[in-house]
């Protein structure tokens, strides 16, 4: 960390200090040349800050996109916003100085046909057609989009080097992606992951909205994170509309978010056990994950929390009777979960496979900008619930669960500690529901404004940035799923590992394909 004097100077210009869920007039964000904003981003990141979002948008009447950046991690609760003007389709890449920008910059190049000069690995992110005609960073066929999985791959050369290509269709019931390993015998030198197969065009579909389908598309950005993404979206709309939801609604949203975390962490712990052939925990957790999903269904009818979170609050209330049912079932499931998962930690076979496998060093994790479970397993205290708390999280006061080794064991153990934290949280939230309505009427969205909405989903930080136009319609809606930051972590974790450990490493991250591909 630098001295605070440096940080104070950063607050002045070229970045604007805001808080999450603040409706910021677009005009109040300084609009400066890219070189200046680029320098400021670099300085913030070098001082311990990080990039939450970096994206382009062609504002009305402009030929080229402006680049918008959301930075955080310097002062608790505060964010920094920047807006850069481009005077050419070619400009200097930030990734050269700041590795965590690399995928954001590839996305910008893909969406807006600009060339980020000096970017070390400029290739498509989603193999999608561009949103604007400019200078293509790679050759485009007549169909308008490159063939998924095409293009250069990182290659290790040598007589005994061989390449293993897997996917997009994988062995299990799992989403598609392509994995390319550079191997020396069983040893993996490098893994490159190519995604985009799940690209449905969510961001483009939202433009001009909110439409009647938008909430449903947000619920399915990553369907296993329905509560996380729907909450981020609804919070953003409420911030722009100046609507404050009731405390009761906030408690119910938080309870649903923790149930989602509990269900997914339970499923992941079971799947990790399955990947090392420890079947007792795998079987029990498979059942228990469903029990937690069924608790969501008691609250709102859907195992995935569909239909619960709506703009203005929640669509379903829980009376004393329902709270009682949910609490009893939760308590029983937590006892069973403890019985199932504690088997893992005293089984030497399991520990031997978890310990030291797929380690990501803390400085690497920081450099590539990991978030969520993957970051906390490397010793980085990154948890939106603690660093950018909404009122309910301020009341609850979360202590992030951190481990130091950055390996499969750490990622499993973070999940277990968080599951143990989430169970009592759900219980407390349901038991102490404040009185009042659960849904407020919505209001029109502020015109020409921007807001940043953050939620700690079960995988990690969900960041949505909403920009409205002169009529209060969404002119740009940026979604950053935690997986967007974390896929690079899995690639780094595989270096110098046995290729046979890939399934275990992959499961220990359990990232979203559709959340990345949008």
């Amino acid at each position: 960390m630098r001295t605070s004097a440096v940080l104070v100077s950063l607050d002045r210009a070229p970045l604007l200090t805001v808080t999450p869920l603040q409706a910021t007039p677009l005009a109040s964000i300084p609009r400066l040349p890219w070189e200046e904003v680029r320098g400021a981003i670099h300085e913030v990141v070098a001082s311990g800050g990080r990039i939450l979002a970096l994206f382009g948008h062609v504002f009305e009447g402009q030929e080229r996109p402006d680049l918008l950046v959301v930075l955080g991690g310097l002062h608790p609760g505060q964010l920094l916003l920047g807006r850069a003007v481009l005077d050419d389709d070619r400009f200097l890449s930030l990734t050269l100085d700041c590795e965590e920008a690399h995928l954001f910059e590839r996305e910008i190049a893909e969406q807006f046909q600009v060339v980020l000069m000096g970017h070390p690995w400029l290739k498509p992110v989603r193999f999608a057609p561009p949103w604007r005609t400019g200078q293509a960073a790679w050759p485009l066929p007549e169909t308008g989009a490159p063939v998924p999985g095409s293009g250069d791959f990182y290659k290790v050369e040598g007589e005994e080097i061989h390449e293993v290509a897997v996917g997009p269709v994988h062995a299990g019931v799992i989403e598609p992606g392509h994995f390319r390993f550079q191997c020396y015998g069983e040893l993996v030198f490098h893994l490159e992951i190519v995604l985009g197969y799940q690209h449905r065009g969510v961001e483009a579909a939202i433009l001009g909205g909110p439409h009647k389908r938008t909430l449903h598309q947000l619920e399915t950005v990553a369907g296993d994170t329905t509560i996380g993404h729907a909450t981020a979206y609804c919070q953003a709309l409420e911030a722009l509309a100046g609507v404050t939801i009731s405390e009761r609604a906030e408690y119910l949203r938080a309870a649903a978010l923790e149930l989602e975390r509990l269900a997914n962490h339970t499923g992941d712990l079971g799947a990790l056990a399955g990947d090392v052939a420890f079947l007792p925990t795998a079987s029990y957790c498979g059942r228990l994950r469903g029990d937690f999903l069924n608790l969501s269904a008691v609250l709102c009818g859907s195992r995935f929390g569909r239909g619960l979170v709506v703009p203005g609050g929640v669509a379903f209330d829980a009376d004393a009777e329902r709270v009682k049912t949910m609490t009893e079932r939760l308590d029983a499931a937590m006892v069973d979960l403890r019985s199932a998962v504690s088997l893992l930690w005293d089984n030497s076979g399991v520990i031997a496979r978890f310990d030291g496998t797929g380690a990501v060093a803390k400085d690497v994790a920081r450099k590539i900008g990991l978030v969520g479970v993957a970051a906390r397993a490397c010793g980085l205290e990154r948890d939106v619930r603690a660093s950018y708390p909404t009122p309910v999280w301020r009341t609850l006061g979360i202590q992030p669960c951190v481990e130091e080794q950055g390996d499969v064991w750490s990622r499993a153990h973070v999940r277990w500690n968080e599951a143990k934290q989430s169970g009592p949280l759900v219980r407390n939230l349901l038991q102490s529901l404040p009185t009042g309505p659960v849904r407020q009427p919505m209001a029109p969205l502020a015109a020409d404004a921007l807001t940043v909405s953050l939620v700690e989903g079960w995988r990690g930080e969900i960041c949505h940035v909403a920009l409205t136009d002169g009529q209060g319609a969404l002119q740009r809606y940026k979604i950053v799923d935690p997986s967007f930051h974390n896929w690079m972590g899995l690639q780094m974790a595989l270096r110098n590992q046995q290729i046979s450990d890939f399934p275990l490493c992959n499961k220990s991250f359990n990232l979203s394909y559709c959340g990345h591909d949008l």
Partner: protein
Amino acid sequence: MFNVFRARIHQKHRTIDFPKSAPVLPDRFRGLLSYDAALCQAECEACIPVCPTDAIDLHEPGIALDLGKCLFCGACEAACPTGALRHSTEFRMATRTREDLLLSGEPLKLAQALEAKAKKLFGRSLRLRVVSAGGCNACEADINVLSTVVFDIARFGIDVVASPRHADALLLTGPVTENMRLALEKTYEAIPAPKLVIASGACAISGGPFAGLPEQHDGGAGLLKVDLYIPGCPPHPLTVLDGLLRLLDRLDG
């Protein structure tokens, strides 16, 4: 080792009794939409514009409903002033044809069993190759859950396999993104004939919340001949299981 045995006893036997006994679903579970034409008011149309996927249309003298588009969100139920449209807790919804998912008051025609020859081939052993083509991982998760001890589909001779060459059927989820179209077609071709195609979830049937977007193909029906349609967003695991068992003629009634 003692701990393992103790846990085994503690965790009990958890496989559900379905299909022998009817499962109990939560009171708020949004299953099959029931439509009571007698309660539907003329010139009301309140349900039509609120449906996010335009699954409801006018069908004189009332409305027609497309279960293949339905996200089971409850918007129409909330908008209906008379209670003519209601979500029941009925989870059995799978059909053999797309047309059977179009309802205008008549009872849903649930999936018929396979024809004799196909039933002989697949009735006691059905191997599924699941392909997610833009699925959001909710349909995938609730198919995965069928292999847990709770549903244990292997007891019906149904299993999920890794290689399409070992599969009897392709189970499709997702709206079929353009970027997955080729991989889907190749996987289908790799399954030896005779083979079945099962479309699970609103996306795979109609594109679901993504219908009409240029990056996808409104589900699998335009590319493959579908033998079983399983509605839902996502379908409840029991809806999937019930559909599969009906197809294989493993249910009475």
